[in-house]
């Protein structure tokens, strides 16, 4: 067994992220973690569903939500999912520079999404007085959407650290699994968002 993790471009493994034992472990480990995350968000969604009508005299879902900003956020996050697919595509072709570029675009889209979310929360707090403490609905809303936002923050820190750390080193079999697990995590954030915009915003605007 060889001790170094460099990639031989003439003998490129089909999937560099799963070419080593460690890579296989990381790949499966992240998937299993996502199984647990599914239940975590399920419980937050459940809490939201049980409390969404408990506005305690404050603004209701219909008064609060607006379609435009949510649509913009959805497009940003969905697109960032595709750009991370592009990054992994270039990883499989051993094109490190393009991979970094697409990961960078993914991160920028993520930051834009986060900016929208911060704006949204600030808007609710200042213009509606709708806070984490104002009603059970408020608590449930900020807990669910905030947890998702927290995941976005974590994902962004993760990819930025990865990109800086490996900028000079290039792609090898040691860091390829790390990029790949990030991409999976990022897709999962998107999955959760699809349910947030459907269950929280769209269903909240239909009476």
């Amino acid at each position, binding site marked *: 067994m060889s001790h170094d993790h460099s990639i031989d471009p*003439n*003998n*490129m493994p*089909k999937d560099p992220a*799963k070419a080593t034992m460690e890579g296989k472990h990381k790949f*499966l480990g992240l*998937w*299993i973690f*996502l*199984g*647990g*995350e*599914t*239940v975590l*968000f*399920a*419980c937050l*969604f*459940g*809490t939201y*569903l*049980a409390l969404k009508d408990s506005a305690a005299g404050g603004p209701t879902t219909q008064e609060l939500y607006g*379609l435009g900003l949510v*649509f913009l956020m*959805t*497009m940003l996050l*969905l697109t960032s*999912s*595709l750009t991370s*697919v*592009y990054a992994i*595509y270039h990883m*499989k*072709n051993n094109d490190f520079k393009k991979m970094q570029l697409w990961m960078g675009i993914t991160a920028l889209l993520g930051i834009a999404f986060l900016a929208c979310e911060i704006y949204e929360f600030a808007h609710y707090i200042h213009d509606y007085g709708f806070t984490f403490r104002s009603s059970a609905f408020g608590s449930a809303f900020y807990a669910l959407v905030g947890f998702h936002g927290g995941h976005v923050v974590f994902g962004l820190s993760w990819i930025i650290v990865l990109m800086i750390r490996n900028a000079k080193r290039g792609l090898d079999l040691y860091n390829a699994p790390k990029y790949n697990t990030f991409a*999976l995590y990022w*897709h*999962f954030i*998107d*999955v959760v968002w*699809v*349910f947030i*915009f*459907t*269950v929280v915003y*769209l*269903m909240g*605007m*239909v009476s």
Partner: protein
Amino acid sequence: MPDKMSTRKINSFQKQKNKQEMQKMVVSFALMIFFTLVAFALVALEIPSTYVIPLLLILAVVQVGFQFFYFMHLKDKGHEVPAQIIYGGIFVTVLVALTFTVITWW
């Protein structure tokens, strides 16, 4: 060396395959955007129907299916255990969602 030649060939074959896969990804992305547009349109146009909410949920589930099976490769070989785990998670999710909509009151 003939040996090296053959690996190059496999490499270009792999490149071709990666490209084909990427095209599928773009198609599924287009479909996801389409489903999103339909969902937002249903709400924006204020279609008065009892079917809107079930329809929104179906659109979300289909879209998430694309995300899982294509973007995250859950349909591919070697993803059997992850698929089982995610199905388990979805099972618990359904239980939890039912609980909090049907049997949680004072």
